[in-house]
């Protein structure tokens, strides 16, 4: 031992510390890499700017989208070294199926179910290199609940009007048709994009689920149910107008005086005075609760991208505006989808089913990957009250404003609406279901700025119901 050993001990000590520090640095780095590759993995892997999904998709035959009978609505064809998406029905399903463009992205089912269609979501993808053993070179097939023939009928029935149709099964919530006009052709997006994205009549908008309209008189079915539930059902007297407060007068169409009438008759003739009176009798909180019961305050999560419905702030409404809400006017705005669901509720013993578009998803070898089971969304009322409202809706079509929707041999229940709006002529509405005794389909039709619901929307609904019940 010589005396050099003491400083060497000091060096050794500091080298030891530096060694620990160096290894700690690399352990810190390893922890960060673990964070990136495990915790941030999904965010980075499916980031819209990450080209990997698109690159893989180009080598994979994207799955088909079909209607419930297997009619192909979207498919991939191989041309010029890569797959291209084709839509055999052109504009007919544009809002449901959506588009798939390298330039403008994906919408509708193409967007929501991209993981299944491209095959990227398959569980074996997590197995690293081993996943190559199972790799399928084509995506999964998405089978929708819609019926191509009914969709065609709905689309044609709208004619050249702007508007929307929703047809659904009240018992399951399956969407059978969902048409929106004007539409666009997803096959020719690259050449028409500038036009359709800027057009004043918004062809890209899915009016059926994202169009917001005042409901007008069709909301009266809900108000009538609330009146029955709250026992606000005394006889009403209508002399053609109704003075509320000092400066507001609610009027009937053409100032018709309906005279003495009960709730059923009032609904059949769509008496504004009666329903304004009911809204006032119910009061703000019961009216607000009623909209809440029917789901208007909740956003639905699921296949269909919908706009949030707009309700007035009930606590701040004056009497005039409250009465307006009772007849579906004022600041109340709803989507056609929600109106079809409202009609379905009375067709389905007071139970509101969760609407869905995707029936099932199957792998290329036919294996069932996912199947939609009908699911109750809300139960706003009981079957007795629902039955009473359904009966009233039958009389609307038999003897009231909705006679244009009547079918020979099949009892139709319905309600018309003529919604005033700041954009011109009234919007024509019809909601209903048929056959009344055992409802198979429920429907909502809105035709923008077309006038009276009974004269314009009811005949359109009739044509569609005819096809649906064939």
């Amino acid at each position, binding site marked *: 031992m010589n005396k050099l050993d003491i*400083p*060497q001990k*000091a*060096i*050794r*000590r*500091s*080298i*030891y510390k*530096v*060694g620990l*520090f*160096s*290894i700690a*640095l*690399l*352990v810190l*780095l*390893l922890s*960060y*890499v*673990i964070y*990136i*590759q*495990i915790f*941030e*993995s*999904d*965010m*980075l*892997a499916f*980031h819209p*700017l*990450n*080209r*990997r999904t698109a*690159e893989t998709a180009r080598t994979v035959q994207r799955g088909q989208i079909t209607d419930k009978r297997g009619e192909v609505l979207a498919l991939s064809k191989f041309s010029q070294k890569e797959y291209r998406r084709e839509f055999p029905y052109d504009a007919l399903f544009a809002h449901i199926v959506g588009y798939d463009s390298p330039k403008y992205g994906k919408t509708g089912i193409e967007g929501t179910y991209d993981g299944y269609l491209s095959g990227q979501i398959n569980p074996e993808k*997590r*197995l*690293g*290199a*081993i*996943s*190559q053993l199972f790799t399928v070179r084509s995506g999964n097939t998405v089978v929708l609940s819609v019926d191509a023939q009914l969709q065609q009928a709905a689309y044609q029935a709208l004619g050249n009007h702007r508007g929307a149709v929703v047809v659904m099964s009240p018992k399951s919530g399956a969407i059978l048709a969902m048409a929106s006009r004007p539409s666009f052709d997803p096959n020719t997006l690259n050449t028409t994009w500038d036009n359709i994205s800027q057009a004043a009549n918004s062809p890209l908008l899915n009016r059926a689920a994202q169009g917001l309209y005042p409901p007008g008189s069709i909301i009266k079915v809900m108000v009538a149910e609330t009146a029955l539930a709250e026992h606000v059902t005394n006889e009403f007297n209508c002399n053609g107008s109704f003075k509320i407060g000092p400066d507001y007068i609610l009027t009937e169409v053409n100032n018709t005086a309906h005279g003495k009438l009960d709730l059923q008759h009032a609904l059949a003739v769509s008496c504004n005075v009666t329903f304004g009176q009911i809204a006032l009798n119910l009061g703000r909180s019961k009216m607000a609760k009623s909209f809440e019961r029917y789901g208007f305050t909740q956003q639905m999560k699921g296949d269909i991208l919908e706009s949030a419905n707009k309700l007035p702030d009930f606590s701040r409404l004056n009497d005039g505006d409250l009465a307006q809400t009772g007849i579906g006017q004022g600041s109340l705005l709803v989507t056609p989808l929600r109106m079809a669901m409202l009609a379905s509720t009375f067709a389905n013993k007071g139970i509101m089913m969760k609407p869905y578009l995707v029936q099932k998803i199957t792998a290329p070898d036919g294996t069932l990957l996912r199947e939609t089971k009908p699911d109750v969304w809300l139960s706003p009322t009981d079957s007795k009250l629902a039955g009473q409202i359904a009966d009233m809706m039958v009389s609307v079509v038999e003897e009231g404003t909705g006679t244009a929707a009547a079918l020979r041999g099949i009892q139709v229940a319905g309600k018309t609406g003529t919604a005033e709006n700041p954009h011109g002529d009234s919007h024509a509405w019809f909601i209903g279901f048929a056959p009344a005794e055992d409802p198979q389909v429920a429907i909502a039709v809105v035709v923008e700025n077309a006038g009276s619901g009974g004269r314009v929307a009811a005949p359109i609904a009739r044509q569609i119901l005819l096809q649906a019940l064939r």
Partner: protein
Amino acid sequence: MRQNKITELGLLLLSGLILINGYLAVALPNHHFSYQTFSITVILIALWTLTSVVIRRRFFYADPVLLPLAVFLASIGLTLILRLRPDLFIQQAMWLAAGLIAFIVTVVIFRQTEDIAKYKYLCGITGIVLLLVTIALGVDIGGNKNWIILGPVRVQPAEFAKLLIIIFLAAYLSERRQLLTYATRHYGPLTLPHPRFIAPLIALWAITMAMLIVQRDLGSALLYFGTTVIMTYMASGKWGYVVFALGLFFTGSAVCYYLFPHVQVRIDIWLNPWADPSGRSYQIVQSLFALGSGGLLGSGLTFGYPNIIPEVHTDFIFAAIGEELGLVGTAAVIMTYILIVYRAFRTALASQVPFTMLLAGGLGVLTALQVFIIIGGVTKFLPLTGITLPLISYGGSSMVASFILMGMLFAISEATVTQ
């Protein structure tokens, strides 16, 4: 002693299997298999086995895991080069062969490691001249302005300058450590020796600042400076140097940040890469996508899209490993570096002579810092800088220099144990 030989050969054989496996995994799915490249692979394995056999005739006690660790990382690098740039495979294989030869030569030269200390000024001056030449005459190839073109040969002198400067520092600091430790002056709260004794440190600081400004090379600047400072600390045991040096470095960097837009750009990209993901921060964002898409097990070799990342085969090779081999691959690589650093410090601590202690410790710090800076850069842990990933990135200078480094550690470890 026989045990060491067997351990080393066994581990080298494992690395050989990994290389053959990697070669086949890349070559077979792409139908790139050729007897030429396959025989090159086999020759490399033979070559490194031969290297072991040759050096073990004179070296009985040296650390038996150093060569296998180096060869393992080089095998991963070679596999990735075959995957990413098949055209560069043969060249990289030749660099690996050159590295093995450099390893043997280094081991022989450093057999009497203490003798090297005599040439410290030669080493130091050569190192600094190489750096100055690079700063003055550096040519930009693939984003790094640290290439020197000498006729047909393209080299990155900075890779070798690092090692020379570490030899110089180890010798210089081990001689002067008493002065550094005890001859102090007080500057306010800091206690530092007379400027005369820390002149080399000031000179290195000036050179690193020049690298930062002229070459836009934050990574190399940090690497040189960090190694110098930490070696000074190891020799003196005084925190004052570290504080003083960090002060200098951050002052210098801050001034650069405000004066030079390109430094600002680098820092801004680091702070918020998502502000301009398709423009200035394209490379780092693509690197993150690759790492994230790889996840735990990766896409499997040849099944990912690492070629989306620019310069993936040099600075960004780590991101390619992350995408195709997943966290399993990146963790294996980082843990291998941790083992190398661990063995370097083990050698340093077992050593009896201050010079070799500091040399081995310095090489350990250099390796740790270099790996930290480049992997930190491609994972956005640190601002992105253009330095290579030792033993894995494509490039001859880096490969040969890394094998020289491993050779130095190997020789030192022999000397320490024989005492």
